[in-house]
């Protein structure tokens, strides 16, 4: 009989096995994500090597201050996520809900700043290859290539954040309904791993995209 309220799913023998399986599963999933982003980083590395000057030019076109703000927001969201995990582990429902909401808000702030501030600005300035690219300086096509990678890499990253927000919503509802306690917090912990990973990807993206050309 399938009992969705059961602490241990029926394919597992005990809680420990279930927890270890979930952890290993999430780490493997993160490994696949590393490979996925790895392909993008490989392409980026090849072109940055070929067109160093153009990539620096492109990087200078971006707003590093906004990027730094977003980086701070994301790191803060990792903090709140870690606190959410801790709250779940110690069975503190109110704190868990608070920290999930905080994480979601910080994540949403990141996305809002990116989409409604940065990207709209980039579009207005004519930095978007394929849609509106009017940069006419030297090596415009190589600068366009930089911008391609900028939008694709931050876009794929943003997609992962949106997915994360979706899962956080589900977890929020479950937390609201009291489904987590000291015995049962796997899902929060796994989500913590995922969120930290998405944060770490951004920590690589930020310098590689915004800080080229040693301008600070």
């Amino acid at each position, binding site marked *: 009989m399938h009992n969705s309220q059961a602490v241990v799913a029926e*394919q597992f023998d005990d809680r420990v096995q279930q927890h270890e399986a979930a952890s290993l599963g999430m780490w493997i999933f993160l490994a696949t994500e590393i*490979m996925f982003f790895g392909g993008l980083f*490989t392409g980026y590395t090849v072109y940055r090597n070929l067109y160093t000057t153009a990539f620096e030019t492109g990087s200078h076109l971006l707003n590093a201050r906004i990027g730094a703000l977003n980086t701070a927001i994301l790191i803060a969201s990792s903090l709140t996520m870690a606190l959410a995990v801790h709250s779940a582990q110690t069975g503190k429902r109110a704190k868990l809900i608070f920290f999930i909401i905080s994480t979601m808000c910080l994540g949403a702030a990141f996305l809002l700043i990116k989409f409604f501030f940065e990207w709209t600005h980039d579009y207005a300035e004519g930095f978007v290859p394929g849609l509106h690219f009017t940069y006419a300086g030297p090596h415009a*096509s190589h600068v366009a*290539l930089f911008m391609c990678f900028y939008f694709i890499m931050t876009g794929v990253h943003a997609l992962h954040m949106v997915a994360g927000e979706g899962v956080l919503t589900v977890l929020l509802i479950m937390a609201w309904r009291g489904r987590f306690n000291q015995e049962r917090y796997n899902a929060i912990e796994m989500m913590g791993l995922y969120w930290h990973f998405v944060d770490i990807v951004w920590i690589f993206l930020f310098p590689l995209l915004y800080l080229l050309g040693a301008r600070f």
Partner: protein
Amino acid sequence: MSSQEIAIEPKLNYLNCDYSIKSWLLTTDHKRIAWLYMMAITFFFTVGGIAATLMRLNLLEPQGLLVEPETYNKLFSIHGIIMVFFFLVPSIPAVMGNFLLPMMLGARDVAFPKLNLLSWYIFMTGGSLVLYTVIAGGVDTGWTFYTPLSTLYLNTHVMAAAGGVFIAGFSSILTGLNFVVTIHKMRAPGLTWFRLPLFVWAMYAASIIFIIGTPVIAISLFLIVVERIFHVGIFDPSLGGDPILFQHLFWFYSHPAVYVMILPSMGVISELITAFSRKRIFGYHFVAFSSVAIAAIGFLVWGHHMFISGQSVYAGLVFSALSMAVAIPSAVKVFNWTATLYKGSISYEAPMLYALGFIGLFTIGGLTGLYLATTGLDQHVHDTYFVIAHFHYIMVGGAVMGYLGGIHYWWPKMTGRLYPDGWARVAAIIVFVGFNLTFFPQFILGYLGMPRRYAVYPPEFHTLNVISTAGASILGLGYVIPLIYLAWSLRYGPIAGPNPWKATGLEWTTSSPPPTHNFEETPIVTEEPYRYDRLAEEIHVA
């Protein structure tokens, strides 16, 4: 449990516990999911097979018998895409891996059963998109999607095809993830790593490749779609892009992918050779480690597809050396299987015929890989029919024969019925003969210089093409016959009983078909696999 008892069909098993459509489409039982995959890949194999039939018919005449080059180009593209991504890659892992892995481990199911079902739906979504591509007019990029052809110069349904493969890739990734966690965390008491059947080692190695490799082809195809939609220049040389970068990204997955296609088959062969010679495997550790070695080294050889792409000579020399290295563990396996037959007690049921055929044909396929890994020689045979012959020997002579052998071997377990072995042996022999007649002439065609992907060809290649097509008709017949008698056996086949082959392995200790939870009680394992020398004694079950 004595296998001399009269075989009776168990009362409640995973098949008859619920007949509703909903119980099938929403199942989380790994055994039912295996059937869902089997139905799907049989369908896709048929579609890919029809494409191949039309191709070989067209090649009966140097000027093309049936279709215009435009259409022929679509046929070989669809044949490749469907056979690689929607038949070979899932075949043994998604069907036999799903069905058997938990049972071989003594588990009730895989680690994430719902994820398992999701994998199938993802697979079907990707497959539907590719079918849409076929119906909507086809794609003609080749299964390799090389740029800038695929991004800038074709107006067929490139994005739909790439999208379909992209989506199906996630099915592989999740299946691989599921298997690795299951193998690590859900082995029965006493089942240490070196007591695992070699089929499990093969699944493990293949799953590592799924996990590490598939995301890279996902991003490669994603970039092609982005370039097509937004007209940006990631691979467009006139905008600073490098078309050869695509080749690197593509082959970084697609070479390990070929090991995904052969390693599970090798795992099946280890099970069949031992069962039908009643012997322990010779060199268990060597075979197990060879599987892992092939998976690991397989990630380092992708450049051997690119020796004459404009890649540097030095890179070519490095990739060639590593390609030689990856051949060694495969050779070690072939020798160990052959040695397993020594002083065995060998019978010739259909699964064994497929297994023996595999060893022979895989040996030829593997040896001809060396021709391609040898740089100076590859410069002559690259992109010719020699390559086609090589990989069909491995994929069809190897992987498909392993798949068919496995299907026949585990059919009684999956269905509770025996199939008529006489017909099965005839079909196996027809497949073997038809296969060689189809593909051996292609080695000659390749060395003569006939390029691949040619809809029309010069007349001096005519005779060999006719022989190849004749062989293909025989091969096709060999594939149709099992469909008939296997379907027949579902209704009219004799009841199989729990262990009709008197084989070792936890899957044979439970009823045929198994109950939904596989085992009445969790088994405890106390010895290595394939202990046929001790089979007279009961296998200890707690």
